[in-house]
């Protein structure tokens, strides 16, 4: 159990893992996540279940390496075992036939939005995807998202691929052209979700976002994941992670994500020192593997 059966580089800082976890694979629904611990001294951290294969008993995780724990995960190899994987956690996405659903992903959010787009499509919706990244080499899961969408739009901030600009620009364009939208699902960095919500609010389009607050247990026991939605405190791990974006206090989310910055830095430094050599070597081979974006 919890063995890495496949590891794949999607971009220099994003990797995909298939983990053997038959029970979770059978049970999970779109929008749910797992909490992972890498080793006995590791922290518990949440990752969305991007996909699952109940037949082969695996779940797919797509991880962006932003700090110590996600970088440590990046050093694991196929055959290695994650110490703990608990899930599926959180409320599943409400998937019903809404009509036209626009699914927007930014960065690693493209992995989080993918299972939702897939479920929305399966529920009979017309799915229009807008996926974006800073630059071409960082764009992930384009083919996967394309396969579950009726229409897909790709943007890069630097114009190296697809349309030049942000995902919000693309959405604004579609709305301006008169596209009738019944629901927007937006997943990515907090600022991106906030920008999408500002836009859809003015068009009065219901918008679902997935909040990536800091978590510990993921079962409603600690309150680390507190967010404010419609002026009320909610626990993202059990009341979410998906909420009505127009009600979310994004500034609070952003502030709370910064809570451990000095500690994260300290942990990263200690980690880099510890595995410095290994890490540099791996990084070198990683960047050669992802060189196509130049």
């Amino acid at each position, binding site marked *: 159990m919890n063995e890495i059966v496949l590891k794949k580089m999607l971009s220099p800082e994003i990797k995909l893992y298939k983990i053997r976890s038959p*029970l*979770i694979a059978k*049970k999970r629904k779109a929008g749910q996540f797992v909490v992972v*611990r890498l080793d006995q*001294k*590791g*922290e*518990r951290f949440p990752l969305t279940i991007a996909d699952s294969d109940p037949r082969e008993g695996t779940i797919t995780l797509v991880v962006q390496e932003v700090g*110590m*724990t996600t970088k440590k995960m990046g050093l694991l190899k196929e055959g290695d075992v994650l*110490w*703990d*994987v*608990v*899930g*599926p*956690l959180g409320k599943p996405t409400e998937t019903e036939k809404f009509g036209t659903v626009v699914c927007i992903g930014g960065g690693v959010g493209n992995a989080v939005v993918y299972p939702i787009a897939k479920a929305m499509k399966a529920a009979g919706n017309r799915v229009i995807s807008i996926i974006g990244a800073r630059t071409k080499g960082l764009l992930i899961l384009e083919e996967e998202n394309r396969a579950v969408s009726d229409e897909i739009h790709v943007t890069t901030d630097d114009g190296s691929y697809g349309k030049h600009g942000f995902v919000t620009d693309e959405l604004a364009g579609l709305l301006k052209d008169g596209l009738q939208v019944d629901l927007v699902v937006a997943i990515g960095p907090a600022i991106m979700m906030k920008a999408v919500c500002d836009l859809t609010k003015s068009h009065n389009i219901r918008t679902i976002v997935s909040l990536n607050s800091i978590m*510990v*247990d993921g*079962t*409603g*026991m*600690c*309150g*680390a994941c*507190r*967010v*404010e939605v419609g002026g009320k*405190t909610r626990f993202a791990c*059990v009341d979410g992670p998906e909420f009505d974006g127009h009600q979310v206090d994004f*500034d*609070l989310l952003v*502030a*709370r994500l*910064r*809570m*451990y910055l000095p*500690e*994260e830095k*300290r*942990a990263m430094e*200690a980690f880099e020192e510890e595995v410095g050599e290994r890490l540099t070597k791996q990084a070198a081979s990683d960047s050669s593997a992802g060189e196509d974006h130049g």
Partner: protein
Amino acid sequence: MAEKKKLSLKREPMPRQDPKLRAHNFSEVALGYSPEQAIKEAARCLTCKKPRCVPGCPVEVDIPGFIRWIQEGDFAKAVQTIKATNCLPAVCGRVCPQEDQCEKLCVLAKKGAPVAIGRLERFVADYEAQQGCCVQVPKEVPSTGKRVAVVGAGPSGLTVAGDLAKLGHSVTIFEALHEPGGVLVYGIPEFRLPKAIVQREVDFVKSLGAELKTSFVIGHLQTVDELMDGEYDAVYLGNGAGLPYFMNIPGENLNGVYSANEFLTRSNLMRAYKFPEYDTPIKVGRKVAVVGGGNVAMDSCRTALRLGSEEVLCVYRRSRVELPARQEEIENAEEEGVQFKLLNNPVRILGDDEGWVTGMECIRMELGEPDESGRRRPVPVKGSEFIMDVDQVIVAIGQGANPLVASTTPGLEINKWGYIVADSTTGATSRKGVYAGGDIVTGAATVILAMGAGRDAARAIDAYLREQKGC
């Protein structure tokens, strides 16, 4: 033993780490009796014919019985006597509120010096562990072929699992967290209850044949119905009262505000006090306010001190006599330097532009007429608001029921607070074959009550299973 014993009113003191030292380490505070001290303290017991202490014990340990063995120097027999009714003596000897239970009723209590029953219990339990000599190897019992699922590996679930395994049933414990023990591992700190002791008790339950599945959340990965439809003949719900309450005042989501559950979980379960050796970080405030006055608040205060906070204030809205924490722990906290800010109630938490705590506004309280609980109700003193200069706030005002299990179990009756309705002698719920006990039934209570509920339910579950065909 015939001649009348001379009455001694001098309780043998518990050796403890020096407060100045211990306020900065996580090692156990109370060091435990030596055999000589134990014998000396045991000698004070009158081994009453009609002991008053025993009815005060929720699981009715044969108190004079075990103490008599200590008097005679046979510590192994003493442990066995306790273990006949209490399977967790090393834990209970440390955390039970004996001053409200057995010791409160001891005949010597009237004279102000009850026998130190808890300390003696702890002594013999630790003796057994050290010697490893008298661990009772359970008799091989024929398997009944019945399977029971236990939800939660806290004291209640562990007790049910142990008792049912001893009776020949096949038991699986499902625990949501990655470590078993419930509050004993995520809530109560190392300096009060070393984790190795909890591990020992868990190992014992496993040695009886119970299987443990950690990182397994019932309600998500499997529901109670799925357990009952699948391999299990009965289910015990011992999932505790783990939902942290907040005060619902402005500023509670600022950075630097923790629930006691989060603060203690980071420190205990995740070992954040060893950061960065362990990966989980924890914020160490310079001046910390802990809101509340129970055991959870004391544990939070004392943990904050040990993590290195300069000042720790315990903010409680009633007065000293109403503090619900154990007397011993209040004294320990005070000795270590925790300051008690009594008759104060937080009104809001203040923050800076970046979202960090910069202070807490409180209002002074005075005691009015007694309320339903019989305690005098605290009423705010008009216009007495003031700002407490703190940079961290830990909210320790209580816990409630996590709705996950109940909300995914149709037909399971709950009360208005979300606790599961269960028969007080059998633990039977509104669902056939589903039993419940511990904090999820009573609301946040004590280790020994959770354990007692587990024992009662184990008996009832055994009877239920034996009634079923094919047992």
